[in-house]
């Protein structure tokens, strides 16, 4: 395991606590007993200064950016593979996949590792991980336009909208 360069969560024994902490914070842990019915949990991350989200159930862990071994003969957005405790996992660059402007990674860059059946565990490089958002269904509206079908829904967060990504579409790279 790589040694952390900054101590965002201060935890040494893994990368997961970071978003667990985020999740706790978002749920208002121990603050209120009378919450509205929670229907969806979203992990919000940042790409090109804009908020995006995916379902929390799809997230296995979040790791710091580490050395990515380039892979030949794959679409450009598959930037390579990383070794993850004995597993070798392909990593997709979020900006590239969504057709956004490319910038060099920063200290806040993360790889979100997604669950995958049947050898389909995948990493996505994002600019930063923001929070876990608990929203009820009426805060979510279908997206009328999107990045070529990648964004299916929008979720209201305060004044702004978070784009919810259709992972099945985004990761269907064999067909594209």
């Amino acid at each position, binding site marked *: 395991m790589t040694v952390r360069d900054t101590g965002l969560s201060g935890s040494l024994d893994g990368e997961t606590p970071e978003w667990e902490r985020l999740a706790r914070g978002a749920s208002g842990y121990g603050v209120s007993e009378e919450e509205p019915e929670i229907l969806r949990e979203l992990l919000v991350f940042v790409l090109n200064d804009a908020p995006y989200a995916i379902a929390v159930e799809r997230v296995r862990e979040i790791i710091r950016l580490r050395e990515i071994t380039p892979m030949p003969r794959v679409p450009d957005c598959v930037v390579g593979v990383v070794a993850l405790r004995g597993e070798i996992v392909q990593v997709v660059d979020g900006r590239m996949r969504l057709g956004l402007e490319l910038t060099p990674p920063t200290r806040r860059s993360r790889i979100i590792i997604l669950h995958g059946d049947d050898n389909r*565990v995948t990493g996505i490089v994002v600019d930063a991980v923001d929070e876990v958002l608990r929203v009820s269904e009426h805060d979510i509206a279908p997206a009328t336009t999107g990045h070529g079908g990648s964004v299916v829904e929008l979720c209201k967060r305060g004044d702004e909208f978070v784009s919810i990504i259709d992972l099945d579409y985004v990761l269907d790279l064999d067909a594209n």
Partner: protein
Amino acid sequence: MAAKKTKRKPARPSKADLEFVAEAEEILERMREELADLADQRSSGREVDPDLVNGIFRSAHSLKGLAGLFGFEAMGKLAHHLEDVLDSLRLGRLSMDSPALNLLDESVELFSRLMQRLGKSNFESEAQSSVEELVARIEASLQQPAVSSDDFKTLDLDPSLLRALTEYEEHRLRENINRGRHLLLVDSTFEIVAFEEGLSELSGAIRELGEVVSTLPSPGEAPESQIRFSLLVASDLSCSEVTERLDFPDTNIRLVIAGTAEASKASHVAPETQDSSTPSPPVADAPVAKQPSVEESKADLSAGIESLKSISDTVRVDIRKLDELMNLVGELVIHRSSIAGIAERLAADSTTRRAAGELSKAQNSLGRKLKELQASVLDVRMVPLRQIFEKLSRVARRLQRDLGKTVNLKFDGVDTELDKLIAEKLVDPLMHVVRNSFDHGIESAEERAQIGKSAEGTIRIEAYQRGNHVVIQIEDDGRGIDPTLVRAKAESLGLVDRDAILTDKECLALIFAPGFSMRDEVSGTSGRGVGMDVVRSNLSDMGGIVDVTSKLGRGTTLTLTLPITLAIIQALLVGVGKQRFAIPLNSVLETLLIDCSEIQNSEEKEILNLRGEPLHLRRLSDEFGVTPSDEDRQYVVVLGLGELRIGLLVDRLEGQLDTVIKSIQGPIAQVRGIAGATEIGDRGAVLVIDVSSVIEDALRRRDAA
């Protein structure tokens, strides 16, 4: 294996069924081997090894117990009758040429068939009727009179001893006398406290010289603290020879009957040593080391369970567990290499140099032990090809019937070992190849007679190990393959351009093209156009390769080359530009450092003069679109698979490592040229090159002139 078979079925058998199938399959597999041996021994005219018959009997017995345990009545019944036949056989009530023996194979096949239908709705009734039918035939074939129990009264033996013989022992006695062996009685006394040890030592020594027909305690004239045993022994050696070689205290050997096979010089009889005072106790109670294989057929329930337990001292292990073990070993290997890295860094600093030396020493001995561990785990995964070849000969027997061709299937190197996983994957491709030889290769008997070949065709399958690969050659003496016909057919199927220039060898290789078939109409055997291309793709999945050579009118040889194991490999680490790749070392023939000026061009292809032979070169940087470093000198990694060779140009050689190839997870399932990846210590992931596809692509590019 069992799980694989049952997977295709629409109706799923229960978990218990699968357990039964897994266990029964193993027993059946063993029985098939044993029956094949039995057939061999019978046809060779040699005396059939009694232990072999005992072995088959035990297999049938286990099968019966198993079927009973899982409540499969029909199968239990079949096993029961099988056991009966074998019991009669080992007791000599049934002669070796009884027609009942021919039904043994059939019974085993019926078992297999039934197991495949397990879980189907009408399974039990179907099973019932097919078993009933076969059992009736078995019973009918057993109706021949039993061999009459002749009298041993003429033998110079104590009648009480004779009475104590079991039926099996009587049979062995008779058999040995008929074979003209010397019959000896070995009397020995042992201290009661240690008799088991002494007796087994004595029996062991005697077995080197002959067969122990029976071991009976004779409590006659022995002192209190001692126990006497009489061992009835049959041997080709004379009494004096046995006496000479058997050097045991308190042991008396006498001749009971001289053998006829050899003029008996030592016909000296010493009757005064026998004791007729007390009858020997029945064998069942005797705490003696009998011939280990003998067991009573009429054993009670607990004894039956006992014998089931003692049949085998092997453990069946799910191959996935071995994979896990292998992965763990692999990870240990990786950790070891990081320790080596730490030692290296410490060695660079003068203050820690001493500790570094010790660390690297410890790390080295750890490495040696890990190698041993690796080798043992690998060894557990290995299975002899015999099992696969057995399957092939069954298929061959069926093909002979279906096609009406007489073909002699010969096997060589049946003990060559392969990783179980590869062996499993090899079955289908091998089957295809043998079928093709039957169908397309071997001519009909009439055709063969016309051109002066023997009516019986021959398919020879030879397996041998070459380095880290196993080579399997399938050679037939059939009509061979005509490259011009193959080409014409391939053209008509649109698989090759009309104006492509191909050598004969390249034309032959077209039989591996997807969709290729020589037959105009589809036959039941082969000719559906899914054959050789499947063979090739199956092999290349395993990192293997297939090659064909043929002489028109003389025959065809297919050569399959595959790695012995997929689990742990040694890899050569190479560098191109800023990147690093691993190449499985078992495909690397040699490495050379060359000056770029040595590279010659021929029709825009780069070649190297390698000791007078042209070696086709491929730049790894071109293969994978990597920017190479601008070096004057390049390394050539000579890759070889089967007969194929190419040279891969790389910037650097970075050393060797032991590694486990991991599959790459993610949205892109397969990348041509990449077999997987591996984790190297703290240096992250490295892609492992799929040598077979790189070679294939390079040669295809060369040929597409």
